[in-house]
């Protein structure tokens, strides 16, 4: 555990031809990077996350060349070839009243690998496409949220006084709402607007992925803002900031050159944990029907589709859930590793 950000000078042995200048320049970032790289569990988690991202990005390839279906077009009357025989994708069932139909189950072949959904669409291809939407929303909203929170925390912590009061009260207000209920409120209103959202020249279609992205980003701002503001407040009192003030540094210089670099590590520690949280939130909103909108899919919407098929074709709901668990688990482990690497004594925690 005991590692120091500075190499002890006299004990360093120089290789022939190496000057002390070359090896002294190790930034805290590189040291943290090395600590992270040595954490095998965190590296495994990173590898798993990268794997899931890559697999999701390959969704069009999978749909076009392996499954050979369009995962967004319903295929109620189509047929597919299983074990050399042609079978219907949506099959009539004799169970119950004899009126039902059940989509094809897992074939464990390239077409309909884990079966079809109610619309006769290839679920595996949809899960991969869904991964793209889920990951995009999760990562984008966590980044937006962290950046906004960082900016607000810098303003509040640096100027203090009424700036801080106003911003912190506003954050308290958002904090007072249960996350899901606030997100539901915003989504209900934004998704029902005919013709999409218009802000001046910008028009966002109601089915755009940016609607859930911004909703999730806004809802979580206070959770990132609070630890960051505390950090800014304490860094602002440090001697090096005083030294910079005494040299006549401008406010901008103080904020961006002195304070920001010292709170950025906290933001980076929070980021993987935030992505884990935002991915779970996106899944929940989509499951409730107010996240990603048809025709697009996300892991949450596929679980929602699978709910009606739960007892007949359980894989439709189970597989996207497994993708969520693996992604979020990888991000949580990675987040722990990043925290240990950057800030071994940190007390930063993300709460649900």
């Amino acid at each position: 555990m005991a590692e120091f950000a500075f190499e002890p000078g006299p004990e360093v042995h120089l290789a022939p031809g190496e000057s002390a200048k070359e090896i002294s320049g190790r930034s805290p970032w590189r040291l943290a990077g090395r600590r992270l790289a040595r954490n095998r569990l965190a590296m495994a988690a990173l590898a798993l996350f990268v794997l899931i991202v890559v697999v999701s990005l390959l969704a069009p390839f999978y749909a076009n060349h392996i499954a050979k279906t369009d995962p967004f077009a319903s295929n109620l009357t189509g047929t597919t070839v299983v074990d050399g025989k042609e079978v219907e994708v949506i099959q009539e069932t004799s169970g119950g009243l004899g009126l039902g139909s059940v989509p094809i189950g897992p074939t464990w072949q390239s077409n309909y690998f884990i079966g079809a959904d109610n619309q006769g669409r290839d679920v595996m291809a949809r899960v991969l496409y869904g991964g793209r939407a889920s990951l995009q929303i999760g990562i984008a909203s966590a980044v937006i949220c962290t950046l906004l929170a960082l900016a607000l925390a810098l303003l509040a912590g640096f100027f203090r006084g009424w700036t801080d009061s106003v911003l912190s009260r506003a954050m308290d207000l958002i904090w007072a709402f249960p996350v899901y209920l606030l997100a539901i409120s915003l989504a209900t209103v934004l998704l029902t607007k005919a013709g999409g959202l218009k802000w001046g020249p910008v028009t966002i279609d109601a089915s755009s992925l940016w609607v859930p992205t911004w909703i999730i980003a806004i809802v979580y701002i206070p959770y990132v803002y609070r630890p960051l503001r505390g950090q800014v407040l304490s860094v602002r009192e440090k001697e090096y900031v005083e030294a910079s003030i005494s040299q006549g540094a401008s406010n901008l210089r103080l904020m961006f050159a002195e304070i920001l670099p010292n709170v950025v590590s906290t933001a980076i520690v929070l980021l993987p944990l935030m992505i884990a949280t935002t991915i779970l939130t996106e899944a929940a909103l989509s499951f409730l029907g107010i996240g990603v909108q048809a025709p697009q899919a996300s892991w949450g919407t596929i679980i929602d589709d699978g709910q009606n098929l739960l007892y007949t074709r359980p894989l439709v709901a189970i597989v996207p859930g497994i993708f969520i668990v693996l992604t979020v688990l990888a991000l949580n482990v990675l987040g722990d590793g990043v925290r240990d690497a950057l800030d071994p004594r940190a007390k930063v925690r993300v709460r649900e």
Partner: protein
Amino acid sequence: MFAFVVRRLIGMVFVLFAITVLTFLIFFATPGIDPSRQLAGRNPDPATVAAIRHQFGLDRPLPVRYALMMKRLFISRDLVSYGNQALEVVPAITAAAPVTFSLVFGAAVLWVIGAIAIGLLMVTFKGTFVDPLLMVLALIGISMPVFWLGEVVNLITQDRLHDTFLFSWVPPLGYTPFTEDPWQWFLHLIFPWITLSVLYIGFYARVLRADLLEVQHDDFVRTARAKGLSPQSVLVRHMLRTSLITFVSLFALDFGVLVGGGALLTEVVFGLPGVGQLTFNSLRSLDLPVIMATVIYGAFFITIMSALVDIVYARLDPRIRPA
């Protein structure tokens, strides 16, 4: 102390007021949202729309509409749903609240016991395979979407293994009030309780483990060891007590969030007619007054809960008071 309580309560009242204003603005002042369209049904003629606008006071200025809405919500308590005008919003919430409370209360009991047990096990067996194993299990618990876990539980207990001796006693999804049949109430809620508590067991066990490890080198622990107490006794009677401070404050807030509507997903998956289910149903029909009322109810509950936590804390720990 008295001054602190008064100040905290005044602050709380301001937040409550701000919550109602913000919620009202979200639902009724976003440009482009026109509830009268929804009320009038499909292809209404303009006269009907105008009549409805007048009936619901939608043609009045915003502050007046806010005041009317709050009067109907808090004072006369006769705010009705837009979708079904026989449904009064306030009685609907008070009828649903006990269901949510039953769900959250039972889950809270499970999660406190589970988290303390696992946290203590992790610290006791630190350095063996048990600690990392429990750590990974706790992480998996945190990483599962609760609605998905609920569906998997349903799949197993309601369908795949329902006819075996393991789960044949599980009643169909739904809810029986405690006052009607306590045993059925219990049976209906067991799996919702377990499902809801998994996430919190994982989270709290990790928090507790970190806090326990933090105090293990403190002076009072060394003293306790030096005077010859057994390791178990030091862990439970001395270390655990100190570490429970974070635990309890987190617990109060999470409990508030869950009763305030955070248990929505669990209620939807298990068909429990609580406040979350009410929100979900009104979401489907875009019933704005009901959603607004449940959101305000949830935020109120959380705000009042956190004010109470602060006051109890200040009572227990005088250092907090000036802040």
